[in-house]
């Protein structure tokens, strides 16, 4: 019975992906992408990866969909730009892509012996970290260096986006009223939803230590609430030269780095935690990271500054 549901979901996913490639209008393709992301989140739940499903729904389809939809709306008249490939070359490309798909499918269908897995190792050392969620343990204890570097990559991407501002707007604020002209209904929405959204984000960050959730998912919900409030005109977009904004952006990775360096003195080495305080340290780092991720993702989706404050 579950296999029938899986087959239906897979047919929908592949069909919607193919439709997105084929459709002519860019705005329609972007809306199809948002739907595709939500279906992908259901596929992740079927694969027993609930943390990844939350992340995909929030980042992969939520905030990325908003970003791409705004860009597609701005680029509405440019559908015909660029020269399409000639028909023989399109056939060659299709054949090559089919070959790649077929070889991946053949690898998938190979008979599986016992698959190599790190799950027993992860569970063995889980009580030393004090956490209940093994994915959070991997993100913040076993592979904490990856998470720290990922935060730095986010900041670098933000600096890259800011550097695309025109010279006259450097140090100014991104403008968010390209999306929708501020109206009273949007202002009403931006006044009733963010309180619930903030509680939801705090809950997801806090419970990420034992249940699926975590800093990334909670931080993304916070970022989306902030973007909603800025789009409705209730709060103005901060200028990027603002000192407290820059401190908010850096606070998360800086705290993570400080905790990591303190590991030299109070534990085994860089990014190691003393077993008695491991959970407390990890939760503090997660809270700081959630705030920084909220600020970074919100500013990434807002785009480069376009007007002087």
């Amino acid at each position, binding site marked *: 019975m579950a296999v029938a549901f899986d087959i239906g979901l897979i047919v929908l996913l592949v069909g919607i992906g193919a439709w997105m490639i084929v459709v002519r209008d860019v705005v329609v393709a972007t809306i199809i992408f948002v739907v595709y992301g939500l279906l992908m989140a259901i596929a992740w739940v079927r694969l027993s990866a609930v943390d990844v499903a939350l992340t995909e729904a929030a980042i992969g389809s939520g905030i990325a969909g908003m970003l791409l939809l705004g860009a597609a709306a701005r680029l509405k008249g440019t559908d015909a730009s660029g020269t399409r490939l000639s028909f023989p070359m399109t056939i060659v490309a299709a054949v090559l892509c089919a070959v790649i798909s077929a070889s991946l499918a053949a690898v998938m269908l190979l008979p599986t012996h016992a698959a190599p897995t790190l799950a027993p190792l992860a569970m063995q050392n889980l009580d030393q970290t004090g956490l209940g969620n093994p994915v959070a343990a991997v993100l913040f204890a076993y592979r904490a260096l990856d998470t720290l570097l990922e935060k730095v990559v986010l900041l670098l991407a933000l600096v890259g986006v800011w550097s695309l501002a025109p010279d006259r707007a450097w140090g100014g604020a991104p403008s968010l009223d390209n999306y*929708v002209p501020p109206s009273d209904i949007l202002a009403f*929405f931006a006044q009733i939803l963010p309180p*619930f959204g903030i509680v939801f984000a705090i809950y997801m960050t806090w419970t990420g230590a034992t249940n699926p959730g975590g800093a990334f998912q909670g931080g993304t919900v916070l970022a989306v609430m902030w973007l909603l409030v800025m789009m409705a005109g209730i709060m103005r977009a901060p200028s990027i030269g603002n000192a407290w904004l820059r401190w908010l952006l850096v606070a998360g990775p800086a705290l993570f780095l400080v905790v990591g360096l303190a590991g030299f003195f109070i534990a085994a080495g860089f990014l190691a935690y003393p077993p008695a305080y491991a959970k407390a340290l990890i939760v503090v780092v997660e809270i700081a990271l959630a705030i920084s991720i909220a600020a970074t993702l919100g500013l990434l989706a807002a785009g480069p500054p376009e007007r002087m404050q």
Partner: protein
Amino acid sequence: MSSIMDVFTALAISCGAFFFVAGTIGLLRFPDVPTRLHALTKADNLGLGLVTLGLLPQVVGALAALKLISVWLFALISGAIVTQLIVRAVR
């Protein structure tokens, strides 16, 4: 007792699915944007409410039941507001 709950769940979710199909048919067949939105929001919200009602006997504890109902309420609120915004953009 649990089999009665399962039958209730199956019935409620089937009714909800029927309303979703009705809303989709309205989306495809109605002539212009306001009528399509009308069909979509009315039928889909009722369908989602029936699906939520059907899932309530399957969860354990009042907290999980409240979470399901709050999902329905959030979908209701955002559906209503987005409908108004779309109609304003189209007119």
